[in-house]
């Protein structure tokens, strides 16, 4: 099941509805992408530039558009897509609606890996070292949580394992920043733990995107296995899916995409939690169908939050992670309360 599930001969309305959902999400993403290009203080001059209404100094405006606005919007899109997709994949695999890259320790461990690469200067000599550091961190963090919490764990064990890995990773990150040669390092922890897309360039897109795309490819292929997993591990195994291989692909897919994304944008939280949860009823609760929808939804939500970070503050920009936390933390509480009511 997944993108290709478009059988015309079956009278079920679900298929048409799924296409509609995906189309609407795609349109929303495109709309927000365009808005992001023009949001913020330089909005009016940029609009003039495009409407050919005699903008002064078009060269500077084009420079702003091409080197600042465009990479930022692109990065918001791909980072958001990664977080949404990884969140949906993790929730499907762990059969737990509370799973997301931030909560299961992937993001903070990735931040640690990236911090080590950046502040030791490794990334200065070899730019790819930055996303590779993030990827290594993410994979190690995920492996640890998966070791601690296992496949059939309840929500509590998973959260606890995630808390353990997150705390440890944050501590190591603080240590690394404290020991870093640059005097600015210690203050930059805010970026790594909250995330931001300000002043990113095409360089960041270039070093992170290849890994993200490979990660997406690995995760999108897991749709059917995740569907099969919903009737239990044994049944899924009997349907022909190797659980070991599934676990490996999950680790690699989430590790590559989330690791590269955190390396260039910091650890942006809650996108992977909120988006799959909101979209799941719209795709008939099928984990496989949720994957592409969640990717689009994640891109849209991140773009919206990034626009908000620029537009909502009269003074300097808000950090992106602050906005997503303001949306996500209450949502997380609401989820927990709902779960407690269902399983007292």
């Amino acid at each position, binding site marked *: 099941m997944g993108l290709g599930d478009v059988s015309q*001969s079956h009278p079920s309305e679900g298929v048409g509805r799924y296409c509609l959902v995906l189309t609407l999400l795609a349109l929303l993403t495109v709309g927000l992408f365009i808005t992001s290009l023009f949001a913020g203080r330089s909005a009016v001059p940029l609009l003039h530039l495009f409407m050919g209404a005699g903008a002064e100094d078009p060269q500077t405006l084009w420079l702003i558009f091409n080197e600042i606005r465009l990479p930022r919007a692109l990065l918001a899109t791909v980072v958001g897509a990664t977080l949404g997709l990884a969140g949906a994949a993790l929730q499907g695999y762990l059969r737990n609606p509370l799973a997301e890259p931030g909560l299961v320790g992937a993001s903070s461990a990735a931040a640690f890996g990236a911090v080590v690469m950046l502040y030791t200067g490794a990334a200065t000599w070899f730019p790819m070292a930055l996303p590779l550091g993030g990827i290594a961190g993410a994979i190690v963090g995920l492996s640890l949580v998966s070791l601690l919490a296992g496949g059939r764990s309840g929500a509590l064990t998973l959260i606890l394992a995630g808390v353990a890995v997150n705390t440890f990773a944050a501590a190591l990150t603080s240590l690394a920043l404290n020991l870093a040669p640059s005097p600015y390092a210690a203050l930059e922890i805010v970026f790594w733990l909250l995330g931001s897309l300000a002043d990113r360039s095409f360089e960041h897109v270039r070093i992170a995107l290849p890994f993200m795309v490979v990660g997406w490819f690995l995760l999108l292929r897991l749709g059917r296995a995740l569907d099969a997993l919903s009737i239990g591990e044994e049944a899924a195994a009997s349907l022909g899916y190797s659980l070991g291989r599934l676990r490996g692909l999950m680790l690699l897919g989430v590790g590559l995409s989330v690791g590269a994304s955190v390396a260039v944008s910091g650890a942006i939280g809650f996108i992977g939690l909120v988006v799959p949860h909101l979209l799941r009823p719209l795709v008939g609760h099928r984990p496989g169908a949720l994957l592409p929808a969640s990717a689009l939804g994640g891109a849209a939500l991140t773009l919206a939050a990034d626009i908000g970070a620029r537009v909502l503050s009269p003074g300097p920009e808000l950090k992106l992670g602050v906005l997503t936390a303001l949306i996500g933390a209450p949502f997380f509480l609401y989820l927990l309360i709902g779960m407690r009511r269902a399983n007292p």
Partner: protein
Amino acid sequence: MSTLQANAIGVTLGAQQVLKHVDLQVKAGEVIGLLGPNGAGKSTLLRVMARVMRQHGGSITLDGADIDSIPRQALAQRLAYLPQDAECHWPMAVEQVVALGRLPHRRPWAPMSAHDWDRVAYAMAKTDVEQFRGRSVGALSMGERARVLMARAVAGEPGILLADEPVAGLDPAHQLEVMAMLENMAADGAAVLVVLHDLTLAARHCSRLALLAGGRLVASGDASTVLSTEHLRNCFGIRAMSGETVDGPFVIPVGRVKLDA
């Protein structure tokens, strides 16, 4: 036409040897009822035969070939396994759950074909869950959910079906329906191995019975051989009343028997 054969299977879980040197064969056209007291190792045997678990001793062959030599997906196309107490984690629509049974037959990225939906509809009809097709599986009762999962197993048109207590939560009418469906499947050429606790159902609908106790295969054959007074006393610790009616045999436990040391 398939034959699934377990040879000298031994399984150790933790410190305990759960299965000791068990031989069992399931042939096309047969419904084998696997009986035994709790903890005898029936579910474990099924798991091993479905390749969901590895055995520690012995081998499994499918049509003479070592089952491990068959690629996963090819095996999944021929063999369906219905575990006990299966869950349905996400509240998907019933027809989507049943459609999962078609996964081994579908090519990567290919949508559900008309034939696929056809088999799904057939499976739902056979297990009497058609009227639920669009409803969320989370809204069904346990028995209805069990039938949905049975439909999933059947939707794949398996040559071999291994079912672990498929009628456990069902009402009497549906118990009879499912057993009849299994018999029909066998008649159409499938090999069916089903774990049962209801002795009458086993006696009535299975072509052969196998009795597992303490990890060993104690008896195998027709109902009168396997469900003899002696076996009932030694393996189950019960006395039973048995007989023949126009619809078939019956075996009803009537009292406990103290097992000699």
